């Protein structure tokens, strides 16, 4: 850790939490609603700058680590930011910056207090903490920070029957799920004597790292059984977070009833975090050569994830066709894409030779899902605000187009998610398809095509709703949200056109994730040594 801004970037969850909790007391003095929108935008923008700088540093010169309170790992909480964490952190920071800035426009129409921004900043704190931490128990804490602010944001319109019901359904199952993850952490601690991810990863592979094990000793008891139970419990909570079938039931309600900027942020802040945790657990910690592979549990887990991924892709694609609420269509589209992401992850686990390229495909598809969903939610936010309804039919019967930019955003978003070149969705689906074939999962490749074909009708309905509302006398639309939509359109286009560059960066990242665990562990050993 050689410069202050790297430390600030690693500690950004703390900065965000402090900035978020500063809002309620300060709002007694400062009543202006637009001030708090600007304040939250400045904070998230500064965090985005820090995270992007850190990502560049990590990709060029290897992982960085930051330990809290001077406690050496594995005794204290330590954050290790390797390529995987850095990619997720920058995606989260970017989408949350854009959606918070969008909220400054969107939330003006509601009598919303500044509390909204407290919850939003804590949502970012939780999700950044989840992807940067190298401590399984701190992951539990950060998942709770993320989850409680997500429940709060879903029930933000607390006088609405539907949002309170959606939040109650989400919160009760979510709270039970995170408690089960706590039990999983206890299982890991009981058998490995540590909750540090790097330390567990070393011990799970039967290796010895002197600097870590000087503190935490060896492993105890039935390690294989305990690891299998722990991974089973934690996969349940993280597939719940990422909305994988059959744990997807909360997502349509939550996405539909949350304020639109929050729905746009959910794909990156909640779903992607779940996917990240699964990748971290199944590749870095219990990767190939670990105790899970020796007892054969790893293959079973990936086969289950593969089946659930196919189920999720099909269920999402089928159900998005029959929805009338535009935000529910988008929610089912997310479920379908999460399924495709899990199919790629399963391909990385099952196909031994093609692991790195399959993981690259899943990372690329996560980028597609995050950018595409954010673009569609934010564009439809402008149209919904003009039409005053979320119903697809009512949206398309508005005579005059409220915003040409928002219509263009919907079209680009649909093309991105359906997979039309030159937008990024085409390249990520192509990579997933190739990696499924390379891993010998031909059935999965066929199902990817089938789910894409089924989803066509849903996407056409979205595009039609946006197009038919554009007619004579159309305007460009309000300045702030339209600027954000243009940024996302450019992003979707750039990440597609720069396909070779993006792929080589992601290849580098996934190569180090599926490869040896040394790079991750050395990030700790260097600071200890």
């Amino acid at each position, binding site marked *: 850790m050689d410069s202050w801004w790297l430390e600030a970037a690693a500690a950004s969850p703390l900065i965000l939490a402090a900035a978020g909790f500063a809002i309620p007391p300060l709002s007694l003095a400062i009543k202006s609603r637009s001030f708090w929108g600007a304040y939250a935008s400045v904070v998230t923008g500064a965090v985005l700058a820090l995270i992007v700088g850190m990502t560049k540093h990590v990709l060029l010169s290897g992982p960085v680590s930051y330990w809290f309170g001077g406690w050496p790992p594995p005794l204290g909480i330590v954050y290790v930011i390797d390529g995987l964490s850095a990619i997720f952190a920058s995606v989260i920071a970017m989408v949350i910056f854009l959606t918070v800035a969008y909220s400054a426009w969107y939330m003006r129409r509601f009598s919303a207090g500044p509390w909204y921004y407290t919850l939003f900043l804590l949502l970012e704190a939780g999700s950044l903490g989840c992807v940067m931490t190298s401590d399984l*128990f701190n992951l*539990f*804490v950060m998942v*709770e920070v993320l989850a*409680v602010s997500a*429940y*709060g944001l879903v*029930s933000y319109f*607390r*006088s*609405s*029957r*539907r949002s*309170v*019901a*959606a*939040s*109650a*359904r989400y*919160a*009760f*199952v979510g*709270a*039970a799920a*995170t*408690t*089960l993850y*706590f*039990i999983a*952490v*206890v299982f890991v*601690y*009981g058998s490995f004597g540590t*909750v540090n991810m790097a330390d567990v990863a070393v011990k799970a592979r039967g290796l010895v790292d002197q600097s870590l094990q000087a503190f935490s000793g060896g492993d105890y008891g039935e390690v294989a059984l305990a690891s299998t139970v722990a991974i089973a419990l934690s996969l349940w909570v993280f597939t719940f977070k990422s909305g994988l079938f059959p744990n997807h039931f909360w997502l349509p*309600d939550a996405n539909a009833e949350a304020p639109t900027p929050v729905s746009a942020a959910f794909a990156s802040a909640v779903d992607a975090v779940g996917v990240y945790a699964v990748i971290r657990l199944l590749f870095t910690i219990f990767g190939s050569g670990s105790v899970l592979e020796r007892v054969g549990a790893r293959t079973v887990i990936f086969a289950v994830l593969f089946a659930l991924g196919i189920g999720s892709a099909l269920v999402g694609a089928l159900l998005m066709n029959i929805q009338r609420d535009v935000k529910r269509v988008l929610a089912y589209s997310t479920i379908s894409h999460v399924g495709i992401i899990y199919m790629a992850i399963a391909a990385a686990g099952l196909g031994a030779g093609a692991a790195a390229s399959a993981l690259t495909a899943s990372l690329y598809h996560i980028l597609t899902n995050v950018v595409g969903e954010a673009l569609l939610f934010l564009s439809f936010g402008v149209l919904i605000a003009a039409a005053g309804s979320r119903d697809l039919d009512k949206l398309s019967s508005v005579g005059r187009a409220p915003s040409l930019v928002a219509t263009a955003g919907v079209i680009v978003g649909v093309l991105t998610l359906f997979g039309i070149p030159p937008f990024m969705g085409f390249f990520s689906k192509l990579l997933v398809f190739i990696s499924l074939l390379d891993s010998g999962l031909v059935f999965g490749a066929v199902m990817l095509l089938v789910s894409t074909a089924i989803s066509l009708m849903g996407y056409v309905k979205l595009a039609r709703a946006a197009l038919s509302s554009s007619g004579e006398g159309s305007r460009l639309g309000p300045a702030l949200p339209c600027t954000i939509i243009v940024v996302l359109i450019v992003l979707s286009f750039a990440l597609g056109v720069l396909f070779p560059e993006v792929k080589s960066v992601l290849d580098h990242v996934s190569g180090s994730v599926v490869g040896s665990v040394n790079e991750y562990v050395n990030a700790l050993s260097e600071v200890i040594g």
Partner: protein
Amino acid sequence: MSEFEASLSLIVLFSLFANTAIALYGVFSKPNLVKKLISMTILSDTANAFAIVIGYRAWPSPEESPVPPVLTNISGGYAAVQELVQKSVDPFPQALVLTAVVIGLAVTIFLASIILHYHRTHGTVEMVVSG
């Protein structure tokens, strides 16, 4: 470990797992939100008790109970530290449980306030399927 201790720890572990199962049943299948909340607190308390049990070491003998992880004999030097390490319970799960209890408190308060709002908007605390 004597036979008595083995059966004792089996009883403790079995009751913890039975508690978890009952709590999960309550969270998922009771339509009443207050009953769900009660099951939720049972679940998190069970998880906390489980963590404490994991940290409660195999004690030296049935007559001699383990000691708290605090060094009372300061002038004892290295030998005293060694004796403490052999006899004391593991402090780490206790630190975890302390954190988890605080988080559980926050989550419980949130769930209780959601139930309150549910009651205000729906006039009932029974969960209806259609929302």
